[in-house]
């Protein structure tokens, strides 16, 4: 497979041997990294699926409540009721490092501590269903934040795992075999040179002896 031309010299041989050692070491490390990433990822993705199911169910029921609320009052009144929200949500984004993947962590803060501030309207002109609808949506919010955190982590880790897997495969199936092939080629070439030198020396010695003693004439 020696597609690459290598110089059969001792210096090249030492270089290649060093390269092989580094590659094997790197391969082992990357493989460990991949396995650990995978382990953590599988836990995370299971959680992702669970949280997603909870959130989707929550939003579905909240939407149903909103439809009912909308049926009970005029659209204009509904729009006015929700036009100027009292509450505001801020997000504190931190960073967590899992196996050298930077994963965002979210923590949310509301502008006011009062949890009744989600009702941004007077209760006189709105239906009671709207209160329930808004409340049901507010209940899903913590899970939604958690979903965002977990799902983002999953996406980032999946990308990292894919990258690591490619690297492991490249080392295992390309770099290491290629280097070994080259090392073998050089060793054989050097051995061959060694032997031919040996033979040449023996031949020369024979010739010199012949010249000194004239064996063949006796």
């Amino acid at each position, binding site marked *: 497979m020696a597609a690459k031309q290598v110089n059969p010299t001792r210096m090249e041989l030492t270089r290649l041997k060093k390269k092989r050692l580094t590659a094997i070491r790197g391969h082992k490390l990357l493989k460990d990294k991949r396995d650990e990433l*995978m382990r953590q990822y*599988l836990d995370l*993705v*299971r959680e*992702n*699926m669970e949280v*997603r199911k909870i*959130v*989707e169910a929550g*939003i*579905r029921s*909240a*939407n149903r409540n*909103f*439809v009912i609320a909308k049926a009970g009052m005029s659209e204009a009144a*509904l*729009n006015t009721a*929700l*036009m100027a*929200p*009292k*509450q*505001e*949500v*801020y*997000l*504190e*984004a931190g*960073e967590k490092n899992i196996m050298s993947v*930077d*994963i*965002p962590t*979210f923590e*949310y803060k*509301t*502008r006011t501590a009062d949890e009744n501030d*989600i*009702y*941004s309207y007077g209760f006189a002109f709105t239906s009671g269903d709207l209160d329930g*609808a*808004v409340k049901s*949506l*507010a209940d899903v*919010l913590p899970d*939604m*934040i958690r*979903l*965002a*955190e977990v*799902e*983002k982590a*999953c*996406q*980032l*880790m*999946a*990308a990292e*795992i*894919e990258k690591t*897997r490619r690297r492991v495969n490249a080392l295992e199936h390309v770099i290491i075999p290629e280097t070994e092939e080259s090392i073998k080629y050089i060793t054989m070439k050097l051995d061959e040179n060694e032997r031919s030198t040996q033979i040449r020396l023996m031949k020369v010695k024979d010739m010199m002896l012949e010249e000194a003693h004239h064996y063949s004439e006796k």
Partner: protein
Amino acid sequence: MYKIAVVGDYDSIYGFAALGLSICPVKNREETREKLRQLAEDEYGIIYITEKAASELGSGLEQYLERALPAVIQIPGVSGNTGAGVVGVKKTVEQAVGSDILFGGVGE
């Protein structure tokens, strides 16, 4: 300090306004793309997008997958759950593992 945005058709997202999230009603694909780009550059940590708007966008979402922030998360809209969110999760499993070994038969 980051904010949270919700993108989608007005009927699906107006409730989130009461909670204090920024709502961005969009009507068509171009608007969604433009809005998403704008929000991603702005100080938004999480962008929730309805599955319907996301599916119209097609591959426009992929560029946000590998960025740390913002997290673009699909949520079901008022018209029902299309299952796109679950498919998205399965896709990441496929990307990481090579094939979907976890939720193979669990789809909705």
